[in-house]
């Protein structure tokens, strides 16, 4: 790899895998880290210093639920002292009004609050926890403080028909940004995939509603939406390319190019307890593995789009094609695309005398694999 390396711009920090919710689409790996493995405050502080020196601009505190860390105020202070912009990705469950004020006082720049739906019943089904009412309370508290607010609605078949209601919640809050984040199929979401994929009709309708809202809310709320890539023609440039823009640190300090990378076999991940962020970014096996183009297969290696989407997602290629170096099968140019087409065809098949899938799904409660809380 002789191309000059750009420095990472963002550091995603999984502070813990502990969480009060049990969402069926959680992006954490199926093997959750125990509390005993979590890095102490001191090591995280060193990581933030190293990140800023490396050119990182932003840190995302996530998890699990980052607010379950008793040292969260020290962590925010430490990240700000290092010169980083601090994003907090939270369910809001451990918040009260006093705690929120302290987070902001410590230097929190941006709070992203997750929503599992627009209704308590949906939130309860998806997270196996009574959670929606508390989030609405958090929105009221947020109106009284000065911090950037994003509402992140995780979208799938069970709540994609609630977009208008979600917009109402957002518009009566102080949020200046909304993310409609269609579920991506890894980890827990992959296990629950059959019950999460929306139908094409549902997806098309949701895009119309979102498009019209974007226009209506211009200058008031910025809307970003991510479509489920099974329905796309070309794959997403996952993470902005492997080892190009982002670095993720797990609760025990392993450095990953993305959330799901540990599913890739025969790949060793460096740990921040043993190596500096600079060494890890520049030289570690995991980060070097899919940089450049020498690892690409056909059709990627001669495709004009390889500098746009880098062949898509390595983890998805492993999950769907059995090979992390393969073309991401969501790409219509992939020889394995047929597998996705069949899956979508079955989901979207007109059923004659039977109910349309969306109606049937709305009536029948699926059997879910809920994400547990680790010890």
């Amino acid at each position, binding site marked *: 790899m002789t191309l000059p390396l750009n420095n990472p*711009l*963002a550091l995603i920090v999984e502070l813990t895998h502990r969480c009060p919710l049990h969402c069926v689409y959680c992006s954490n790996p199926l093997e959750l880290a125990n509390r005993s493995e979590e890095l102490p405050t001191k090591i995280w502080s060193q990581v933030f210093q190293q990140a*800023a020196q490396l*050119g*990182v*601009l*932003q840190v*995302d505190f996530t998890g699990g639920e980052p607010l379950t860390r008793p040292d969260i105020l020290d962590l925010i202070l430490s990240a700000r002292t290092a*010169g980083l*912009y601090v*994003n907090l990705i939270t369910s809001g469950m451990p918040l009260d009004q006093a705690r929120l004020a302290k987070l902001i006082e410590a230097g929190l*720049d*941006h709070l*992203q609050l997750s929503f599992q739906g627009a209704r308590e019943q949906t939130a309860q089904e998806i997270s196996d926890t009574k959670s929606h009412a508390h989030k609405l309370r958090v929105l009221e508290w947020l109106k009284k403080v*000065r*911090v*950037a*607010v*994003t509402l992140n609605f995780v979208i799938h078949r069970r709540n994609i028909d609630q977009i208008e209601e979600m917009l109402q919640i957002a518009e009566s809050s102080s949020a*200046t*940004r909304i993310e409609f984040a269609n579920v991506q199929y890894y980890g827990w979401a992959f296990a629950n995939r059959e019950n999460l994929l929306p139908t094409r009709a549902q997806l098309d309708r949701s895009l119309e509603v979102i498009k019209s809202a974007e226009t209506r809310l*211009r*200058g008031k*709320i*910025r809307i970003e939406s991510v479509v489920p890539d099974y329905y796309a023609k070309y794959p997403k440039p996952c993470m902005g390319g492997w080892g190009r823009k982002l670095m993720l640190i797990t609760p025990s300090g392993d450095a990953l190019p993305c959330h799901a990378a540990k599913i890739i076999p025969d790949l060793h991940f460096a740990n921040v307890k043993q190596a500096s962020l600079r060494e890890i970014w520049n030289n570690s096996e995991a980060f070097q593995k899919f940089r450049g183009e020498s690892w690409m297969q056909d059709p990627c290696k001669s495709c004009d789009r390889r500098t746009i989407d880098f062949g898509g997602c390595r983890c998805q290629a492993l999950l769907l094609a059995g090979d992390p170096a393969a073309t991401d099968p969501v790409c219509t140019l992939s020889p394995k695309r047929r597998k996705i087409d069949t899956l979508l065809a079955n989901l979207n098949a007109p059923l004659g005398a039977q109910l349309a899938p969306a109606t049937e799904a709305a009536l029948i409660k699926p059997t879910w694999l809920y994400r547990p809380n680790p010890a």
Partner: protein
Amino acid sequence: MTPDRKSRVRLAAGCRLGQNNHQQVLLMPERALRLNGPSLEIVQRCDGIHSVQQIILELQQIYSQADPEKVESDILGYLTLLNDQRALDFE
């Protein structure tokens, strides 16, 4: 929609100037914009005190060699863009 020229311009909550390796940036939720020359001059004046009109006048003075109408339309365009991104508010 063109902003009201008398309105004051202020960076939105959670949006602030930062720098890394001598590069000035505008930091906002999950994004950073590089600021150089005119864009830096504009954003530095989004302090809740300067009005749109004042920013235009001051930049026309700084960039006195440039066509003042172009400076004005560039500024209005840039401020609108940042407002659409929710990086600033007109008050």
